[in-house]
């Protein structure tokens, strides 16, 4: 089956090419169907591979790309449990979102392009996870960044959206530089960027071409790669693009900025688990970044009023959990969380999209309320997803998040505590959102008749809702009597790394304790939210009214964007102006110009020496002779 692997990314690429080249000549319906079908085909292939892979790791060569000296890169694909799982997520969720988009985008004039972009995105994302080397991963990595840019700025007439798109791309690029340098250092250390070569050498502690010594080079490599991951997966300090990225159409948010692209960072670290396991310092940095981000983003989400913004910060926060998992060495738990998060976060976004669609573009939760009755399917699926993300057993999120938290507990109890606070916040803001949107009275424009979305949109919702509900069962931990299928499935990939890290003391009693604590805290948060927003009908303060200090800061997202603006963007502009106006034009070019002027000036003066008086000429001549003889006189 693996020989068909190249077809998996190629299908969406073909779809993209057809859509891109034909563009408006293709009927809208056909475009949507074509785009979906290509992804479906990929999904089928992926499923096939997923089922047949069973712990193997296969490299499928496809095409040579380039080589220079001992550096040689080819388009070859690596199929192993990790990549096949991601393939499944990408194509599966991707397919559902394609279908959903047919409905969501049906009245947009450029929908064909939209589908082309989506297909292109799927292509790059598949390349990212299938690539058998870091360089190919980087290709996909950058490619998804581009698609993200294109899709965020899909409504290109709106400059705010364009700014968001640009910001996403540029911030991503900051991370990409780290990735690039890390990749080069990998090449310099191991003489290759192919996973197999790199990992086998790393395992043997064999660093043939390095100028650094042993472990420190791995630390540097992993840190550099982690910078890449920070950018792509929206961690502190590069997370700011993701909330803004919500400018794009909602399916995009669901697909790219929740389910797939942003998890690329997780994938990368999971993929490099062997390297990371050799670099404890990096692991700590990862964990720390993850937990801080989780908490930080969750706190921002508490006070947001834009339905998609809440979800966006929630995504950032959840990604933080995943990094926490990675950092504490629970690689498979993180990947598990990626999977479940893909289900429920996609579902949340699609649900939000459905709401927005139903309310003709309204995004402010202060103008919603009581939609439960008008949009029952959306409401129910949204509730399920909220339960999943909040971590109520037995929904999907519970299992994955809990694994991470328990691993964190073993690693560092303080991290666990922070994680716990974060998850209580998660529960609170999610249900704040849910209650404000679906419960209470409708507060929006009176003439707007909210309606349930068409089937083509609701069916994906339902499917995802089912997955969000039962998806967790593949990872029931041993402490609950399960077998943790997913951990077993991924074991071949992470075995070395797990082995390499310290054996964690894990007692099932304490694990159960932790679960209980979490569940209690989460439920308490939900109850508090219900109390506040349903019983007391408390509403977020409207725009422009005075808030208490701390909520103000949170509402303004800790002013991070503004701080970046003052610290980086504005100074950069000013430096740019200064360099051109002063340094380039005045100093450097000024010196060149001054040399020219000086010569001109000297020329102007020198010609005055030509006085026209023969007297002077004769004098000059004789003095010349005198001087000449004088210097020759010895």
């Amino acid at each position: 089956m693996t020989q068909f692997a190249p077809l998996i990314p190629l299908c969406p690429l073909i779809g993209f090419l057809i859509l891109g080249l034909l563009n408006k000549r293709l009927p809208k319906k056909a475009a949507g169907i074509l785009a979906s079908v290509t992804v479906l085909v990929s999904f089928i292939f992926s499923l096939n591979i997923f089922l047949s892979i069973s712990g193997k790791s296969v490299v499928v060569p496809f095409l040579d790309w380039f080589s220079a000296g001992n550096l040689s890169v080819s388009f070859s694909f690596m199929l192993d449990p990790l990549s096949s799982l991601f393939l499944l997520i990408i194509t599966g969720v991707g397919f559902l979102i394609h279908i959903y988009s047919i409905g969501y985008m049906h009245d947009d004039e450029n929908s064909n392009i939209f589908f082309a972009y989506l297909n292109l995105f799927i292509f790059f994302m598949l390349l990212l996870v299938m690539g058998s080397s870091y360089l190919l991963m980087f290709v996909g990595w950058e490619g998804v960044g581009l698609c993200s840019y294109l899709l965020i700025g899909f409504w290109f007439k709106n400059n705010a959206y364009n700014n968001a798109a640009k910001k996403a791309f540029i911030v991503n690029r900051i991370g990409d530089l780290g990735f690039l340098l890390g990749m080069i250092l990998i090449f310099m250390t191991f003489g290759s960027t192919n996973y197999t070569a790199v990992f086998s050498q790393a395992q043997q502690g064999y660093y043939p071409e390095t100028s650094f010594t042993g472990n420190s080079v791995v630390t540097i490599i992993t840190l550099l790669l982690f910078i890449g991951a920070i950018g792509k997966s929206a961690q502190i300090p590069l997370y700011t693009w993701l909330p803004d990225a919500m400018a794009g159409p909602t399916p995009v948010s669901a697909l790219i900025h929740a389910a797939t692209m942003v998890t690329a960072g997780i994938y990368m670290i999971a993929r490099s688990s062997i390297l990371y396991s050799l670099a404890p310092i990096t692991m700590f940095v990862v964990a720390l970044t993850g937990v801080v981000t989780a908490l930080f983003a969750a706190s921002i989400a508490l006070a947001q009023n834009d339905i998609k913004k809440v979800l966006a910060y929630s995504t950032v926060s959840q990604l933080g959990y995943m990094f926490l998992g990675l950092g504490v060495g629970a690689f498979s738990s993180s990947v598990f969380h990626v999977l479940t998060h893909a289900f429920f976060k996609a579902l949340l976004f699609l649900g939000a999209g459905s709401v927005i669609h139903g309310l003709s573009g309204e995004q402010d939760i202060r103008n919603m309320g009581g939609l439960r009755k008008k949009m029952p399917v959306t409401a129910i699926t949204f509730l399920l997803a909220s339960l999943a993300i909040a971590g109520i057993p037995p929904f999907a999120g519970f299992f994955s998040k809990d694994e991470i938290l328990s691993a964190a507990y073993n690693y560092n109890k303080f991290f666990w505590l922070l994680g716990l606070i974060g998850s209580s916040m998660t529960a609170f803001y999610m249900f704040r959102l849910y209650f404000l949107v679906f419960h209470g009275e409708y507060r929006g424009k009176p003439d707007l008749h909210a309606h349930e979305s068409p089937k083509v949109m609701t069916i994906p919702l339902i499917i995802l809702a089912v997955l969000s509900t039962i998806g967790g069962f593949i990872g029931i931990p041993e402490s609950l009597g399960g077998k943790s299928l997913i951990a077993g499935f991924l074991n071949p990939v992470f075995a070395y790394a797990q082995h390499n890290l310290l054996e964690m003391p894990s007692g099932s009693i304490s694990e159960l304790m932790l679960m209980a604590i979490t569940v209690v805290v989460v439920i308490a948060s939900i109850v508090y939210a219900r109390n506040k927003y349903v019983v007391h009908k408390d509403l977020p303060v409207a725009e422009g009214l005075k808030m208490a200090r701390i909520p103000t800061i949170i509402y303004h997202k800790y002013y991070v964007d503004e701080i970046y603006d003052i610290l980086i963007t504005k100074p950069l502009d000013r430096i740019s102006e200064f360099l051109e106006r002063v340094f380039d034009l005045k100093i450097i070019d000024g010196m060149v110009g001054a040399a020219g002027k000086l010569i001109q000036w000297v020329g102007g003066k020198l010609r005055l020496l030509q006085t026209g008086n023969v007297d002077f000429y004769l004098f000059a001549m004789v003095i010349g002779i005198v001087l000449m003889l004088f210097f020759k006189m010895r």
Partner: protein
Amino acid sequence: MITLLLILIPLFSSLLILSVPARFAKIFAFAASFISFAVTLAVFISFPVSADYQYLIDYNWIPSLGIHFKVGIDGISILMVLLTTFLTPLIILSARNEDNHTPVFYALILFMEMALTGVFVSLDGFLFYIFWELALIPIYFICLLWGGVNRVNITIKFFIYTLTGSLFMLVALIILYLHTPNHTFDINDLYHAGRSLDSRMQGILFLFFILAFGIKMPIFPLHTWQPDTYTTAPAQGSMLLSGIMLKMGIYGAIRWLLPMLPEAVHEYSVYVMWFAIAGVVYASVIAITRSDMKRLIAYSSIAHVGLIAAGIFAFNIQGLQGGIVQMLSHGVNVCGLFFVADIIQNRTKTREIPLLGGIRSKAPMLATAFLIIMLGAVALPLTDGFVGEFLLINGVFHFSPYMAALGGLTIILGAVYMFRAYQRTALGETSQATDHFTDLTLTEKAVLIPLVIMVLFIGIFPQVFLNISEPAVVKLLSGY
């Protein structure tokens, strides 16, 4: 013989064109340059994977001085010639009828093509210098006669600036010549002569050469002629200058400097690289706030070339190969960008980015082409810029990781200014200037589509080019 043909076709057509009626001049010029391209392509396709010079011609030109008309093509030259002959027809095609181009204009372009080809195939130091200088004259006149405001001062500055460098190069070449045992300018003899010098002398010659090449490229801080000149030059002039001519500097360094003065390169290239890398950051930062499109592209070009310079002076295989492939892609990209700027200027009568906007809704094809070329410029993988930039950073990294990190900033800053420019021109609502923007005409398509295809082709199949140049680069590195 074919090498000679590559020089003679443009030369003779540049003379013949003056006798062609003015209205056929463009077609004639295009045909002539296209034939050149076809010939080059044939050579390229049949080019053997070998480190030796092919199609060697050695004619004793000035016997008493040991000057030969020696031309030949190796893996590096053929790529440069290919770039030249590929871009020239497009540049000719891009000339607009309404801009009052007389046959002289096309004659100058073809003459320029001849000189550039000559630079890339010369294997005799003197011949190389002659072609090097010859390339300067047509572009001077193109800029002087068809340029924009203040062209007189700017073109003379450009001319003297570049001539300064090249005269010092001439001095260096003569010194090398005088050190050859039997007084010849043959490249191999010059190599031997250069290598046999003591390190102090090598250092002096290195300085002389670097002046010439550094000004032509240009490397910070020798670059100040460049933004003005690119801005003032007519679109075709900018395309020639940035697309092909600045490659002369890089090619010159690869062919005539690096293998020739190994000790000096070893000792001093680190300074050159620091300047180049500083230029990358410097020019990128400046590009961020430029409002004149051509000026922005000009600064972006300095940044890109800075990285190429740093890469080749790292003098390892990744750096050199990256430099070579990046030369191709930079040529394609920058030509594309200048042409886009020209189209915009032609439609809106302005190049001021703040006055533009919304072009994408009026001219989706243009916007798409612009986008793809821009992606090439910001080195997105699978576009042409990536492979080169990756290899270059790789090469620099070998030399100094910090330099690589600093040079790598280009991928961030490049994205900043390019995306900013793209957004303000192509995206958003239309402005007064762009309200009546029309999409590409047939001719414009004929120029842009090949460029766009090349952007993707080089990005996806760079090995086609890298394979050809690799033996030659290995030979250079091994210092035969």
